[in-house]
């Protein structure tokens, strides 16, 4: 959809009437075209407000309308125009829901100008920084904010993303020419002057808007066709898959990545020396790389703390900076930063799955059933713990509406095994650099397994936090979580039950394309007088990624309640083929 060139489109995305000349301009491209031409003829100064539209109509319809000087517009173009433009992607930031999918914005480059001094253009929801979190979520999802453009020097963006939030930046150089960039800028100008867009976190978001703007500069690029959701990394893939659109890709490491690289070149003895140096001054003559590593620790710590260091840290940092300045420019080669997988190399978001399995269920009163089943699953987005992490935050999960259906001939039953609304898990490791907590939230309609019935259901909300440790050079996580869990449903005795849980788990990328997960959960069933008990659930899951789009999983789950005389028991295993697109 091209809002300012309404030819051939039925409804403009621009949400305010001031952008249109015809009464029904937003819905009637033909009328809008005629009204625009009339307006430009009658009032030449309007070309200063709508320069891209004027340029387009003047050229396409060969109107030969005279141009008039536009002082503010010309100053804007003088300041912002450039020789090249890049699409910049900042990696996902796990601790902030709006940032979990990454973010995209643009950088305009001028030959001879240092990259940090380039101009950046950003599109975002116009909300107050003090906005209440819940209100922000509601408004952001439902279009309660208008979106707006912000222009700032690129170093501001590098500071915001790579330094303050330690997010990697990926710069995708676009093949736009100088004049195409100028057309783009004229369009941004007219949208800012007279247009208004409602901001929708799911689809008309930061990344989507950028694609529509690029389409104005290059009408032959088809970028903005997305069916349900617009995920930033998917927009990057769209541009990459457009022939000739991207000429080069650059990686700009986050502060955390830079710090890791400086520590990675130290041997164990040097690491110890560095930790000591962080605590106390040393009269020893230490090589620059030890001071650089210590300095990077303080720099990271400072920026994690809103650019403030207090007390002893501040003193040590200042001392070390002074000491480092006396050592000259480092001649030894700088720490090499390993370039990670790119965000566009990740698996696609949509999933459907077909599987077969078997289950065996036995309840306290001796009833039981067993049989084979077939399973179908559909998921809207995004990434789970068993997916290959290439291009994603490792060992994380963000899943949007997912439906699991099961059918069993032996049990003569078709049922919803799970209807997930939202399932998010972050297993950030607790390290000496970053003391991160892990957490989990899960909202779903489920089939509880400790009632001895295969197709009974409950609505469930679960949430909690814990810690995770990184093992085997960041190829695995061992974690523990404490979770609050509430279920409500007609199958549940007394309708509602509260099930606090403790879970320990191990999740590993064993070898390339093969992941394994083992979990053990102890669930206490409280406030249920007749059933006061606890039960254990164990899971063992394996996942093989054959391609980014295809995966095979072997899942198994066992449940047993206590006390074990008259226990509820459940066992299932399944094999599935998953397709991502």
């Amino acid at each position, binding site marked *: 959809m091209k809002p300012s060139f309404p030819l051939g489109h039925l409804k403009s995305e621009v949400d305010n009437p001031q952008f249109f000349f015809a009464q029904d301009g937003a819905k009637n491209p033909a009328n809008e075209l005629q009204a625009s031409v009339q307006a430009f003829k009658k009032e030449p100064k309007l070309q200063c407000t709508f320069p891209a539209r004027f340029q387009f109509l003047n050229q396409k319809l060969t109107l030969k309308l005279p141009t008039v000087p536009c002082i503010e517009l010309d100053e*804007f173009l003088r*300041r912002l125009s450039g020789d090249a433009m890049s699409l910049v992607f*900042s990696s996902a930031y796990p601790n*902030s*829901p*709006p*940032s979990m999918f990454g*973010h995209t914005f643009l950088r305009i480059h001028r030959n001879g100008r*240092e*990259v*940090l*001094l380039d101009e950046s253009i*950003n599109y*975002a*929801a*116009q*909300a107050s*920084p*003090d*906005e209440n*979190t819940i209100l*922000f*979520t*509601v408004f952001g*999802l*439902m*279009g309660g904010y208008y979106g707006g453009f*912000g*222009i*700032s*020097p690129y170093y*501001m963006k590098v*500071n*915001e*993303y790579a*330094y*303050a*939030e330690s997010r990697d930046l990926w710069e995708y150089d676009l093949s736009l020419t100088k004049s195409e960039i100028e057309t783009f800028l004229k369009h941004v100008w007219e949208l*800012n002057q007279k247009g208004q867009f409602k901001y*929708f976190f799911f*689809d008309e978001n*930061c990344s989507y808007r950028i694609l529509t703007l690029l389409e104005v500069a290059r009408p032959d690029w088809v970028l903005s066709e997305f069916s349900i959701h617009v995920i930033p990394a998917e927009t990057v893939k769209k541009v990459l898959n457009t022939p000739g659109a991207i000429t080069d890709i650059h990686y700009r490491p986050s502060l955390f990545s830079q710090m890791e690289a400086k520590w990675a070149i130290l041997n164990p003895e040097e690491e110890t020396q560095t930790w000591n140096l962080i605590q106390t001054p040393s009269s020893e003559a230490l090589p620059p790389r030890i001071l650089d590593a210590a300095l990077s620790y303080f*720099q990271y710590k*400072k*920026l*994690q703390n809103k650019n403030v260091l207090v007390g002893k840290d501040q003193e040590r940092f*200042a001392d070390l*900076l*002074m000491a*480092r*300045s006396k050592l000259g*420019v*480092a001649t030894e080669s700088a720490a090499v930063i390993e370039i990670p997988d790119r965000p566009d190399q990740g698996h696609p978001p949509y999933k459907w799955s077909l599987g077969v399995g078997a289950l065996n269920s036995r309840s306290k009163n001796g009833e039981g059933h067993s049989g084979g089943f077939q399973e179908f699953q559909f998921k809207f987005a995004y990434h789970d713990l068993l997916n290959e992490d290439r291009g994603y935050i490792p060992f994380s999960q963000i899943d949007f*509406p997912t439906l699991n259906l099961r059918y069993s001939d032996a049990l003569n039953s078709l049922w919803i095994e799970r209807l997930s*609304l*939202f399932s998010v898990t972050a297993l950030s490791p607790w390290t000496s650099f970053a003391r991160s907590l892990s*957490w989990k939230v899960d*909202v779903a309609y489920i089939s509880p397994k400790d009632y001895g019935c295969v197709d009974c259901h409950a609505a469930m*909300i679960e*949430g909690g936090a814990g810690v995770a440790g990184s093992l085997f050079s960041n190829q695995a996580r061992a974690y523990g979580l404490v979770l609050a869990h509430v279920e409500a449903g007609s199958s549940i005795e007394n309708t509602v039950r509260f099930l606090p849980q403790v879970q320990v788990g191990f999740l590993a990328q064993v070898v390339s394309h093969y992941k394994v997960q083992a979990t053990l959960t102890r669930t206490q069933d409280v406030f249920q007088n007749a059933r006061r008990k606890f039960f254990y659930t164990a899971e063992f899951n394996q996942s093989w990624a054959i391609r980014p789009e295809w995966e095979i999983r072997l899942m198994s789950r066992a449940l047993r309640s206590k006390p074990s005389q008259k226990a509820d028991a459940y066992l299932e295993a399944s094999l599935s083929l998953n397709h991502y697109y």
Partner: protein
Amino acid sequence: MKNKNTILGSLILGAVIIFAYTQSSQAADSSSGCGLGWEVSQKQSLLSSAIRSTTNAFLPNTFSMTSGTSGCQKHSIVKNDEEAVIFAVNNQHSLMMEMAEGKGEFLNSFAQTLGCDASLYSDFGKFTQSHYSDIINTSSSDGIELYRQVRTQMESSPTFKGQCIPRA
């Protein structure tokens, strides 16, 4: 798009309410009205990249440089040095690190805002390193002071005297 967004939005809201935690407020910009104060914005906040109100002005401070209305002009001791002052204020943390190391990307960019040609970047880096204690008054320095000291030191240096003149 609105209906779909409403439905999806309602579904998500429930979970987010559980997850919600308070965001920290944005601290005041302490650089006497010059600079854009990015570094104290919402790191702990849920709102992160979706909004950046202070830095999301359509035409920010740097834009009004040439008309002298940015508030930074009063700090520049050399004509046309506003961009350099703003750069120093907003990138003080990186400049301090790179000056101690004698080289770096932020240092090169700073040199460019001061009007230095690229051929002088390497010398500029070494120069700031060797004059580190003069440039950084580490107990209480701000970016403006950092800029001022650099300019002052450059004036008394044979390598830099008369060089590095920014254009308007």
